[in-house]
């Protein structure tokens, strides 16, 4: 889709000539190009079309008799604007006076005080005093708008930002304005708590202290804090954030607006899970198992135990990485395990690996779509992923494209996605049948009718549906962006995906391409740093490819592998087949874990534990799924050990790997600073050549935009039809799993997010639920032999014959189940756990907002002087 062309125009601003892009709103043009601030409250370009409600930005434009709102007036060539006339000043003073009429002016006790646009604008443009002596309006306050957000309706200046956000950006349609005129107030329609994945953004949007973070309330004032920019490492979306730090503690997370990454929004997990950084349950010093117990140990001891275990293991060592592992850590660890010890058993994926030629072709810069492409493409195709759970801000980005630019969204997934309601077309296939679907789609696009029928039915769909879907995909235009989830990449799926891309000619079309949604936040970086069994840094071939994650588990279980290094990886929680991993870790001679808390994996199986850094403490680089290298900058110091002794406590993880390598006498042990490791990484990976940390800076560098990558053009070859999955029937349902946004250890450890922590919920279709006699909210068990307890949730969008369970939950994790077909048994009626249900918000108005007309106003007679 063509992006708007920008033409430069010149207009006059207070007698000066200013050049700005045509069509830019006057307030932006004045601020950015004219060095003149026009005050605004309701205007926020991120919220879409201006509404002109607050009237703060009134300016005089020659030729128009009335004052105009600068926020809604696009600049035109030759326009003559005055922002400093007495008439404009009078109007601006008037608006400030009006806004302050009902504002309590409790700035000394208000969280916003010191960073409040209303304060600033009052100082800059307000009248200084008020002539209003009537009683102000009163509401009960502060109230819980949600467990995360407090609302103070007296402070609200009714700018509509939060309501517009809820209605037009996050599209959760929860916030509305009640009543009318001066009695208006913000709330949810029926007073339920405003719980939504992106609710926290309204705190940042609020231009006054009406919406405040309950977690941050009264913790600090703006003059107590420092801002530290870094990147949120909670999911692959890698939003740019600014951490609010007071006394070496992270107290708040704010968005650090980056159009090409996050568009200035954050999800609630990213915004509130910083609390886990300061959890009491954090491991802050090395632990070594003595007998059956893990005991605190000195760094020297832990490193020597780990080093001797690795020495003994040699090429029978293995490593898994995940979570917030940086490129540097991955690079060093793969160098230690592969180059130094001679083992290629390195896995950063929970599932099977794709062949090297496929991986190289998928990483081809020509095929890489960027995040803004999601917004401007003609069509976005989601394959077996749901951005709301896997990279939440992408969900907002896709909604923005659909709403504002007419982007068509088509979804192909096993589980209904949150974006289905805005999709042009949604195709359901059986859980785990992503490969069959991609083969069928490839066949539909190439006109291979033979393959189409077989693959479509193997996917649990049919040829007509897939053909229609393929037509929809092509209908809107040639710029197609395919977002594929890592879980879809099994068997020939990678080849099929590349075929599809080749048939749609995505490599040759600018602004089109593929965008992978990896299973771990830095999935792409780990791969590019060489942390993979099949290739080294920069997709270089290796002599002896290693095992994938399941292979490592089997190798450990049957004694072929000795020692495993778990780098931010928690197999018992996050990897499929918990039973196998229990055996594997139980049999392994040494388990070295890098972890921040006592997970099941650590408590039961780890022999050496190195305390992990939280992302605000980390230094290093990450790679965004669209190929952007971003820097993690340490915002706070690492915690000290229990004694508080210098040198105890958490150490940088790159340094830990280096020290282990040094103890083993390897070359890897020669790095002295983190920056040296980064430099070595950039030198080693061919397509990072020439990049420096300085260049990455705060905005990142997309290597795919500047580097050629030698990869032959993909030649679509015919594929065989994958085997069909067993169908549901005889009382069994197909089992599908998904990873909820809230199933994460950071969420478990954040007090603010307890109310939304993921619990096991089994999603059933109404038909299956009726057949099994299960009601919404009933307690049920799902399984085949081994069973998982869950609460039933009946969703009309779930296809009949399928049940979906959450992965990665702390309790009742679906990864104990290994069969594709499961029984669902009702155990009993549901119980309502009072602590799980957020308290209802009380009715908003205490008594009447206004005194009754007939009653005398409670103003004492004034002394007239």
């Amino acid at each position, binding site marked *: 889709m063509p992006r708007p062309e920008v033409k430069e125009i010149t207009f006059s601003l207070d007698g000066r000539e200013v050049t700005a892009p045509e069509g830019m709103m006057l307030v932006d043009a004045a601020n950015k190009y004219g060095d003149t601030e026009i005050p605004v409250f309701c205007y926020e370009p991120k919220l879409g079309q201006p509404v002109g409600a607050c009237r703060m930005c009134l300016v005089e434009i020659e030729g128009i008799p009335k004052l105009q709102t600068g926020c809604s007036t696009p600049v035109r060539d030759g326009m003559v604007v005055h922002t400093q006339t007495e008439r404009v000043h009078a109007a601006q003073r008037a608006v400030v006076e009006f806004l302050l009429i009902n504002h309590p002016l409790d700035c000394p006790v208000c969280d916003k005080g010191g960073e409040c646009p209303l304060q600033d604008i009052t100082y800059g443009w307000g009248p200084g005093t008020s002539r209003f002596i009537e009683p102000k309006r009163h509401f009960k306050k502060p109230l819980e708008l949600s467990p995360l957000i407090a609302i103070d309706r007296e402070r609200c200046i009714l700018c509509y930002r939060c309501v517009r956000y809820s209605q037009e950006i996050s599209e959760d349609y929860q916030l509305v304005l009640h009543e009318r005129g001066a009695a208006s107030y913000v709330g949810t329609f029926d007073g339920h708590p405003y719980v939504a994945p992106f609710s926290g953004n309204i705190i940042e949007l609020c231009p006054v202290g009406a919406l405040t973070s309950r977690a941050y309330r009264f913790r600090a004032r703006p003059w107590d804090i420092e801002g530290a920019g870094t990147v949120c490492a909670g999911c692959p979306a890698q939003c740019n954030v600014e951490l609010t730090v007071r006394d070496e503690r992270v107290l708040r997370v704010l968005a650090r607006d980056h159009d090409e990454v996050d568009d200035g929004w954050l999800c609630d997990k990213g915004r509130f899970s910083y609390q886990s950084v300061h959890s009491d349950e954090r491991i802050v010093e090395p632990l070594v198992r003595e007998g059956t117990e893990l005991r605190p140990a000195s760094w020297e001891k832990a490193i020597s135990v780990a080093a001797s275990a690795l020495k003994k293991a040699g090429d029978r060592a293995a490593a898994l990485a995940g979570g917030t592992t940086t490129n540097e850590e991955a690079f060093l660890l793969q160098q230690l395990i592969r180059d130094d010890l001679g083992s290629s058993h390195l896995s950063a994926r929970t599932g099977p690996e794709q062949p090297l030629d496929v991986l190289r072709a998928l990483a081809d810069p020509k095929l890489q779509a960027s995040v803004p492409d999601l917004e401007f493409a003609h069509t976005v195709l989601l394959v077996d992923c749901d951005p709301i759970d896997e990279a939440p801000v992408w969900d907002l980005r896709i909604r923005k494209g659909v709403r504002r630019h007419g982007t068509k969204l088509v979804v192909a997934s096993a589980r209904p996605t949150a974006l289905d309601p805005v999709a042009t077309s949604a195709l359901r296939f059986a859980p785990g049948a992503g490969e069959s679907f991609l083969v069928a789609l490839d066949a539909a696009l190439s006109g291979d009718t033979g393959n189409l029928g077989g693959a479509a039915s193997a996917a649990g769909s049919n040829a007509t549906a897939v053909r229609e879907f393929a037509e929809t995909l092509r209908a809107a235009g040639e710029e197609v962006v395919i977002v594929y989830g890592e879980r879809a990449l099994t068997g020939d799926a990678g080849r099929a995906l590349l075929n599809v891309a080749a048939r749609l000619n995505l490599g040759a079309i600018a602004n089109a391409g593929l965008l992978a949604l990896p299973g771990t936040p830095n999935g792409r970086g780990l791969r590019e740093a060489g942390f993979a069994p099949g290739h080294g840094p920069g997709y270089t071939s290796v002599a002896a490819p290693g095992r994938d994650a399941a292979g490592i588990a089997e190798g450990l279980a049957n004694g072929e592998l000795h020692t495993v290094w778990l780098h931010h990886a928690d197999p018992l929680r996050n990897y499929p087949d918990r039973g196998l991993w229990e055996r594997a870790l139980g049999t392994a001679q040494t388990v070295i874990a890098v972890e921040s808390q006592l997970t099941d994996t650590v408590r039961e199986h780890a022999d050496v534990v190195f305390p992990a850094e939280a992302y605000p403490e980390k230094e290093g680089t990450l790679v965004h799924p669209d190929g952007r290298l971003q820097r993690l900058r340490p915002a706070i110091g690492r915690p000290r050990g229990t004694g508080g002794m210098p040198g105890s406590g958490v150490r940088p993880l790159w340094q830990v790997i280096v020290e282990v390598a040094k103890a083993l006498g390897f070359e890897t042990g020669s790095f002295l600073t983190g920056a040296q490791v980064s430099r070595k990484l950039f030198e080693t990976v061919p397509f990072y050549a020439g990049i420096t940390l300085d260049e990455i800076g705060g905005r990142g560098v997309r290597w795919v935009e500047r580097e050629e990558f030698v990869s032959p053009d993909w030649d679509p070859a015919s594929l065989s039809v994958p085997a069909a999955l067993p169908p549901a029937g005889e009382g069994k349902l197909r089992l599908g799993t998904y990873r909820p946004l809230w199933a994460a250890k950071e969420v478990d450890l954040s007090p603010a997010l307890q109310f939304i922590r993921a619990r096991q919920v089994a999603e059933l279709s109404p038909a299956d639920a009726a057949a099994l006699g299960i009601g919404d909210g009933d307690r049920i068990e799902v399984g085949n032999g081994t069973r998982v307890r869950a609460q039933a949730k009946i969703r009309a969008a779930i296809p009949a014959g399928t049940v979906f369970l959450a992965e990665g939950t702390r309790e009742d994790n679906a990864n104990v189940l290994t069969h594709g077909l499961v029984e669902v048994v009702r155990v009993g009626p549901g119980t309502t756990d009072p602590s799980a249900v957020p308290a209802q918000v009380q009715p908003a108005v205490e008594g009447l907002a206004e005194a009754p007309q007939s009653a*005398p106003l409670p103003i004492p007679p004034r002394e007239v002087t």
Partner: protein
Amino acid sequence: MIANIDTTLFKDIDEPGLNTIDVYQRRGGYQMLRKALQMEPGAVLDEMLASGVRGRGGAGFAMGRKMSFIPKGTMEKYLVCNADESEPGTFKDRELMQKNPHLLVEGIIIGAYCIGATKAFIFIRGEYDYVADILDAAVAEAKAAGYLGERILGSDHSLDLVVHRGAGAYICGEETALLDSLEGKRGNPRLKPPFPAVQGLYQGPTLINNVETLMNVPVILQMGGAEYAKIGTETSTGTKLISISGQVKYPGNYEIVLGTPVRDILFDLAGGPLEGRTFKAFFPGGSSAPVLPLTDEVLDLPYDFDSLAKAGSMLGSGAIIVFDDSTSIVDVAYKTAHFYRHESCGKCSPCREGTNWTEKMLLRIKNGDATPMDLDIIASVCEQILGNCLCVLGDAMAMPIGSMIKHFRPEFEAYIEQRREEAGLGIAIPQVNRDASAGPKPLLRPAA
């Protein structure tokens, strides 16, 4: 009564059964539709432009020009009839729709033909439920007779007409708020531009006109635009329905030729003041119009758009509300402010807070806890509202209240003193300057 008036809209308005299609057609109804369909849409538009007829809803914008702003093209266009007659004192559209609904239907069909709209709506205020029933019946009759629906009378023109009942908010009479309400949203005004003619209902070009304006369409077509333009004054052509209410002998709806002197309207049509009273002031065009004291000068004004504008008020919707010497201007001011405070949608700050504040100050005057300086603040607040709002509702309060203080300040002051005395507060001594620069004085800095 005024002689030589040719009533057009009110011609035989009380004929029994005029609301049925049979009687309407017998009287020549729907002939103008036939005539229009023979003409090119552009030719119909030319007649409207030639007539110079100005909108009867309040703003007085020329209808033909508004029609000509609708872009040509194949996009979906809409015509919306604004029958949300909520302006206090206005009740002309009610009588028109109740007694002669088919004239409105005919006018809408011709108007839609003229701009190429295929969907039309009548947005009627919820309180006019029984009138909406009459309109529904008329629309059904017109549909059965082939005047509405696909290919009207064999032409290429098709039109759907829907009668939509509003939910009772004054603001929904504002055209963009009306559109939002019609779309099923909260009735809040939209930012203009884009104007509805460019981007209105469901983002399509939309023509919005008042009931009386649209009813004039068949009349203009019958007379010919140029002929119609000869009625009235040069810039205010045609006849106008006026709703007279308040303290007069004969309140009611009257049709006048624009330009008729106010004296003739108030003394001849309305029968003058009640026994033993004298006129004090009036709202010339609904409660949003600035009040004019009924002096001889004002009584001699011709009642048309420009003369009233020149005199500092406006013709508005043609609703004349008259007060005599028995009415306190403070009560009028308070009632007016209360209405607008209650009806402000709350979207923009000056209107939301300004109407609220003004009402509170007027209430304080009534309660005997005010000083004459409060009048300065009220006037200043009204100044601060004027022209600074998103739509005209704020102005609609600021203008009458401001005019009342301007014309009747001595009465306000006397009222304040009297109520203060009754409240035992003693007289107010005007000492403190409380205009825009009011407030504590800056601290004196010691000399260097």
